[in-house]
């Protein structure tokens, strides 16, 4: 789907078919959860990143169904560039009312970045001031898992991770997404 068309679709679904919830409630709830994870794992931020990714993955596995139902897009994306457009302009739009910017494609069209000019998860957030969180914690890491889980359900194995975050003092918040492979339909082994 062309970029402009995807944007129109996202806008329309957001306006007409999405139950809204107070943004600050989301921010507070997510923040409280991250804080609890930091406590549970005794500030082992690498482990916290992993847990956030895992939670996101489990959300993504189910969220894709809601995405497909709401967006009502019966057509498969023709290529990974198309997929990127749909993620940004339809997926992020209908669930969070943001459209991260797509940039930095590799020449093989298998890797791109999403730049988050806005991030509802990270409003009013300050990372722990312990000298480590700034270097180790990827606060919004749940997003990576959501994409990984959701795309897996539509036959794409991807890898996603943040490479910068304004919360860490970087200029931008940037996620890198790589297509590893398209998953073939496979028959279960013992099913004849």
């Amino acid at each position, binding site marked *: 789907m062309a970029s402009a068309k995807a944007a129109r679709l996202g806008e329309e679904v957001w306006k007409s078919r999405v139950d809204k*919830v*107070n943004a*600050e*409630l989301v921010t*507070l709830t997510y*923040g*409280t959860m991250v*804080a609890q994870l930091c406590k549970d794992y005794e500030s082992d931020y690498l482990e916290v990143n992993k847990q956030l990714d895992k939670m996101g993955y489990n959300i993504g596995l189910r969220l894709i169904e809601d995405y497909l139902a709401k967006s009502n897009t019966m057509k498969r994306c023709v290529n990974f560039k198309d997929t990127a457009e749909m993620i940004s302009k339809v997926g992020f739009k209908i669930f969070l009312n943001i459209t991260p910017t797509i940039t930095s494609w590799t020449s093989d069209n298998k890797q791109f970045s999403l730049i988050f000019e806005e991030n509802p998860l990270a409003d009013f957030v300050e990372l722990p001031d312990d000298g480590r969180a700034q270097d180790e914690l990827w606060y919004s890491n749940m997003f990576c898992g959501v994409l990984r889980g959701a795309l897996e359900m539509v036959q794409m194995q991807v890898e996603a991770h943040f490479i910068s975050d304004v919360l860490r003092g970087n200029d931008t918040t940037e996620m890198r997404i790589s297509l590893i492979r398209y998953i073939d339909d496979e028959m279960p082994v013992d099913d004849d």
Partner: protein
Amino acid sequence: SRAAGPVAVAVAGEVAGEKKMDEEEEREAVFYRLEMLGYRVGQGLVERFSLVRPRFTDTLDIIKFLCKDLWMLVFRKQIDNLKTNHRGVYVLTDNSFRPFAKMSTEPGGNAVGRAQPFLWFPCGIIRGALASMGINATVQAETAELPGATFQIKSITTKP
């Protein structure tokens, strides 16, 4: 454990009564954690959204804020019924509690039992919200039939 049927549970219980105890403790720990998460969210919400309104005059005023403004903010509707014994107990009834709205209720599926865990986080929100408005309380919730839910607030100390 969700996939295990009653038979499997009974067998497992016989084999290792100890294990069952652990599971029970684990569940309690999860509920405690959910409640505490809600508590922090409730505190945060009140800090943020009570700023622009006039000072509360008494406890009932605070409870009303909870039933109307806060409930609207979190669940996009107001509490349907409020009862009090005027001695620090308040019972809030929500006839169509949002988190329950889309739960399936297959016959014999113990939907009410399965819905219970979803009440801990909201209980925490209420307790946290009340705490930041100066009321220490215990909050208990139950549901007799989906999608309804009732919340019982018992204030421990009320402001003079």
